[in-house]
Structure formats: structure tokens, C-alpha cells
């Protein structure tokens, strides 16, 4: 019962904020101050969301199909980017020399917004799927490698010493002690990589509409061309939902891991 009450007390400010925004939006929209092409009322947006959700509306695909295409790109791009970033990060952590050399390269790369790679990617790969993927991958690598390296370097020396006195050496020490001890920092890096990747992917899809016309970014652009403002809002909602879902998943994994290790700050 008290658990239910605390869930409710957590929930109501959020619900109130959303309802308040919707109400304000609806009021402004029906006031006639803007035309419905500029600012459609939320009811139109919800209608459009429901109509286009599973049903393709030629020449546009359905929201579900677009989401699927984008999420697959994100997953594949991140998988490659995370794998490469982890390897680079482990190299950086291997010695102070590699940390200075490779590390400064990664710090430089991270200062570069990944979407700025797109023109180069188009030159290299043409107007293809690979160009968009490249942008996602190149965005994830510095974030993951820097987080990997710093989390390995910040592993408490005491745990490493303890592992060594128990006879763990080299690869065993690395795999059984150093890597698990580095997990909290690593997860932060993954969270950052996915957020950067998702932003870069949307920008890439928006700019690169010739890749078979699939994905949420394409859908945004297609609806703009057709001046379907409610549909634009509907797609934006979907982009937000995907982001929130991934964020929530990461949050749950992170909380679980921190809870087990006693790293959760009680609030």
C-alpha cells in the first residue's frame, strides 16, 4: 500500500506536467492565432500518431517501420562503435604512453560533433546506408574509449593488489578483477555513446534522405515536404519515446549494478 502511494507520489508531478503542457498547447492551437499547418492541436497529433502508427501512408512508411529501421541502424552502429571504442580504450589504459598518444587523439575526436563527419562519409561511401552508419560509429568510438580508459585507470589499486596476492596474474587479473571493477565507469560511457549515436543518426537520416527512405529521420523530412505538421509532431514523439525507453533501460541496468555494489546514493 505504501509502495503504491510512493509510486503515485513519484508519478503525479510528471503526469501533471504533461497534462498541463497539452492543455496549454490545445488552448493556443484552438485560439486561431496560428494556422493548423504551423501549430496543429495535440488532438490532431495524437490522431496522426494513431493513424500512421502501423499503417504506411504512401509515399511514407509507417511509424513502426521507420522506428524499426532506425533502431536497427542504431544497434548495429553502436555495436561496432562500442567494440572498437572498447578496444581503443583498453589500449589507452595499457600504458601512460598510449594514454597520452591515443588518448589525445580521442579527446580531439570527441570535440568534433559526429554529424560533421557526414560530408566526408558521403564522399567515401556515397549516399548509402554505410555513410549514416559511419557517422554513428565514429561518434561512439571516442566516448566509449575515453570512458573505458578512465574507468580502468580509476580501478582502486587495493583491489588489484588483493587480486595479485591471491595469485591472479595478467589476463586473469585483467578479466576477473580489473574489468569488473571498471564496469560502473564503463556503463556511463555506453550511456553517453548511445545518446550521441541516437542524435547523430537522426541528423544523418534527416540530411541523407536517399538511402531507401527508411527511418524516423527520413519520415520527418518526408512529412515536412508534404507539409504534414501533425505527422511531424507524431514522428518527433516517437523519437522521444525510443530515447526515453533506452534511457530507462540503461537507468535500470545502472541502478541494479550500483545497488549490488552499494554505490546507490539514497535519496
Amino acid at each position, binding site marked *: 500500500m505504501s509502495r503504491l502511494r510512493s509510486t503515485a507520489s513519484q508519478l503525479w508531478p510528471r503526469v501533471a506536467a504533461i497534462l498541463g503542457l497539452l492543455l496549454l498547447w490545445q488552448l493556443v492551437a484552438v485560439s486561431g492565432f496560428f494556422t493548423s499547418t504551423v501549430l496543429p492541436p495535440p488532438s490532431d497529433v495524437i490522431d496522426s500518431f494513431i493513424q500512421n502508427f502501423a499503417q504506411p501512408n504512401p509515399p511514407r512508411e509507417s511509424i513502426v517501420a521507420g522506428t524499426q529501421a532506425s533502431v536497427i541502424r542504431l544497434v548495429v552502429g553502436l555495436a561496432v562503435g562500442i567494440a572498437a571504442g572498447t578496444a581503443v580504450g583498453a589500449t589507452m589504459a595499457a600504458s601512460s604512453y598510449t594514454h597520452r598518444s591515443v588518448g589525445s587523439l580521442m579527446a580531439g575526436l570527441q570535440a568534433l560533433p559526429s554529424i560533421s563527419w557526414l560530408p566526408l562519409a558521403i564522399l567515401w561511401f556515397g549516399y548509402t546506408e554505410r555513410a549514416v552508419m559511419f557517422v554513428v560509429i565514429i561518434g561512439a568510438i571516442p566516448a566509449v574509449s575515453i570512458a573505458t580508459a578512465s574507468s580502468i585507470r580509476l580501478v582502486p589499486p*587495493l*583491489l588489484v*593488489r*588483493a587480486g*595479485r*596476492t*591471491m*595469485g*591472479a*596474474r595478467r589476463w*586473469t587479473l585483467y578479466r*576477473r*578483477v580489473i574489468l*569488473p*571493477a571498471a*564496469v560502473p565507469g564503463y556503463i556511463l560511457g555506453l550511456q553517453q555513446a548511445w545518446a550521441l549515436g541516437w542524435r547523430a543518426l537522426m541528423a544523418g537520416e534527416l540530411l541523407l534522405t536517399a538511402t531507401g527512405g527508411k527511418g524516423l529521420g527520413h519520415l520527418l523530412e518526408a512529412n515536412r515536404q508534404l507539409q504534414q505538421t501533425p505527422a511531424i509532431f507524431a514522428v518527433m514523439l516517437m523519437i522521444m519515446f525510443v530515447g526515453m525507453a533506452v534511457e530507462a533501460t540503461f537507468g535500470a541496468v545502472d541502478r541494479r*549494478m550500483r545497488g*549490488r*555494489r*552499494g*554505490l546507490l546514493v539514497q535519496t
Partner: protein
Amino acid sequence: MRTVPDLRTVHVPEEAPAKLTARGVSKSFRHARGGTVTAVHDVDLEVRAGEFVCLLGPSGCGKSTLLNLFAGLDRPDTGELLIDGRSIEAPGPDRAVLFQEPALFPWMNVRDNVEFALEMLGLPKDEREDRTMHWLHRVHLGRFAKAQPHELSGGMRQRAALARALACQPEVLLADEPFAALDAQTREILQRELQEVWSETRNTFVFVTHNVREATFLADRVVLMSAPPGTLVTEHRITVPRPRDMEDVLLSKVVVDIHAHLSKEVDKVVAAEIDR
């Protein structure tokens, strides 16, 4: 060298073979701001098999350094360190270490922490499980096998670390002020428990502490180190039979005696600090 004149029971025969040997060992560290500090200077020490030796000294006297050298976590600048006559080159499971912090892995529960050490020894799964539970029960943590380290109190965590060390049945146990971070009551309980367990296992034990009472309570021999650079100044053989009582009059006499020596060294440390 002094000997306390009470010889009711001598646990370790003088002729027991040397388990650990330090010969002419020195070790310096470089300061972050430049310059070097000699932590340990020209130390000779022999610890016989089955002997419980406490290293006692003022802070900064290099007692932890000496322990780390025996552990193989550090290498000496000069001199040699031997176990059973073999040179100590690296850490190894024949020398379990108890640190001031429990050093349990936070991603494993208590049982897995102990089992990890046994896995490193290459023991088969069923033997690992048996030994782990045996030692957890032995240190009164049987009910907490599945707890995460952070769910335990400081004393319980240090008990788990003790179980992990003992489960490996090491030839040598090296302890670096393992009870220093605990409150007085918990410390006393753990000191009694350690005495009890050690009376059965009789591992060779080197125990670093700055607490005179703790040293006299636990040790066969208390070795006093000087103000830095650390060398050995005196040693006191403690022949009070076990189980010992903290309030034992004989022990208290030794405590007073050692205190007199220790305070001379502490005064030197304080004088040096004021001069600086």
C-alpha cells in the same frame, strides 16, 4: 635484544626452520615533490615456521613497507627476501594478505569472494564450495554467505576477508593493521577470534600494528621498528600461554615495557615533524 622472563610455555621452538627471511633489506620511495624517503633501512628479520610475529612501530616507520616486500607487492632496493629459502619475486597465494581495508570485490557476494581466491588456487568446484562454507561458518558469517559486501558491517567485512585468507590455507599470513579501522569493541572481538582461529591453524603470521596491546595479545614475538628510516630496534618474546586474556597482568607488564621503547621512537618522529 630482550626476553621477557616468563617461560611457562614456549610455542615456537627456537630451532623451527625459518619460513620468512629478510636480509639487509632497504627500500626508498620517491616523493611526489621530489626527493626520496627511506622507508626501510637495512632490515634483518627471520620469522620461523608457525611463529606469530607482530611488527610494531611509530607511523611512517616502514612496517607496512616491510610487509609489502614480504608479500611481493614491492621489490627491495637492496637485500633479499626469502620464503623457505627461495627468493620472493612476486605476490603468490602461499602468502595471503589482510589489508587495512577488507578489499572484498564489490561485484561479488561474500561467498563468491572467498571462492574466487580458491578458484585462483585451481581447486575443483565442490572443494571450493565446501571450504568456503566451512570458513565462513568459522568466522560466524555462515548466514551472510549471499550478502553483498556493502551490506555487512566493517567488522563483518574484515571477517570475510579473514575467511578468504584462511580458506586458501596459506603457508604465511601477512596482515597490515587489519583491525585499525574498526571501533574498539569490534576490534577486541576480532582479536580474540583471530587468536582462537590461529591457535588451530598455526600459520606463520606477520602482523603489522601500531597498537601495543594488540601486538602483545597476539604475538609470540613483538618486533619494534625505529623512527624512519625504519630499522629493527628491539624484540620482545611473549611467552604467555594461549588462550590469552587482554587483562592478563603478565601481558600488561610487557605492554608497559614495550610502550617505554615505543614512545622513545614516537618522540623522535614528533621531533622530526616539528623541525620540518
